[in-house]
């Protein structure tokens, strides 16, 4: 058997990145704003989206949202009350979403991107793994609760560095 060195240059996540790029092109071409929300479990992604979806739907905007969790469709049920089109992705143990699932769930839900104004993705609650996966969003939004400690961006630099927008939640202290 012969041996040789094969020089290649291939991104390990190239399949995910290509799918994400295709999704982003479709969002761009149809004037849809697509956002990917990431944070630790319980920071308030669903709470933030509940309020945002309700406000957008009331203004007559066409909104769809995918929400990823390991188990339960609790978040999808909370978001669906806004009147937006919502679909739960159950990852059954997977700690992040991937572009392929986003594409598959959009088609399984029967959503037509051309008929949307906003598309929201609530990622699995995790400050580590979702950082590596482009989902085709135009903006990655990272949430940080004031109660989590102000040093979180220093402890999780990869996700905070990859985000376009950061939102601080839970900044109004409850009455003691």
């Amino acid at each position, binding site marked *: *058997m*012969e*041996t*040789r*060195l*094969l*020089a*290649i*240059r*291939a*991104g*390990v*996540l*190239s*399949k*995910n990145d290509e799918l994400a790029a295709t999704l982003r092109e479709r969002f761009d071409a149809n004037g849809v704003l697509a956002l990917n929300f990431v944070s630790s479990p319980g920071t308030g992604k669903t709470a933030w989206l509940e309020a945002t979806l309700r406000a957008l739907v009331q203004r007559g905007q066409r909104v769809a949202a995918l929400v990823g969790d390991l188990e339960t469709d609790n978040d999808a049920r909370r978001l669906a009350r806004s009147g937006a089109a919502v679909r739960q992705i159950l990852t059954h143990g*997977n*700690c*992040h979403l*991937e572009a392929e699932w986003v594409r598959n769930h959009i088609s399984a839900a029967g959503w037509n991107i051309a008929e949307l104004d906003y598309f929201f993705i609530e990622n699995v609650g995790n400050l*580590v*793994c979702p*950082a*590596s996966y482009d989902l085709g969003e135009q903006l990655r939004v990272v949430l940080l609760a004031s109660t989590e400690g102000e040093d979180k961006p*220093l402890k999780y*630099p*990869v*996700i905070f*560095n*990859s985000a376009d927008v950061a939102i601080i939640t839970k900044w109004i202290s409850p009455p003691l």
Partner: protein
Amino acid sequence: MHELSIAMQLVDVAARAAEDAGAERVSVVRLRLGALSGVVRDALEFSFAIVAADTALAGAQLQIEELPLVIYCVPCARKATLVGISSFRCPSCNTPSGDIRQGRELEIVGLEIMGAGVAQQQPLHP
């Protein structure tokens, strides 16, 4: 912990490139891993060995080149290599920079392939 799924995609991409080149086996995979890739080296090496078994990459050596974070500093008009990933300030003038020039890499840059006649073949993309 997503290194297992990263390892699966790594083996997939490498196996396909090797097959395209007519190889039967892969003995070495060279990988560039940026400090901001979000991938833990030890976990990736561990997962790689498991995933590679039963493929053309079985027993292959994973050679990882770790790349530090490099930013571009506007006041200094040059690139600067940083230690760690928690500060994005220029080591010379302390100005923060969001212009990342290196550190996000997670890419295969070479394979050592084995097979009858592979040495004669020309690279697909020379």
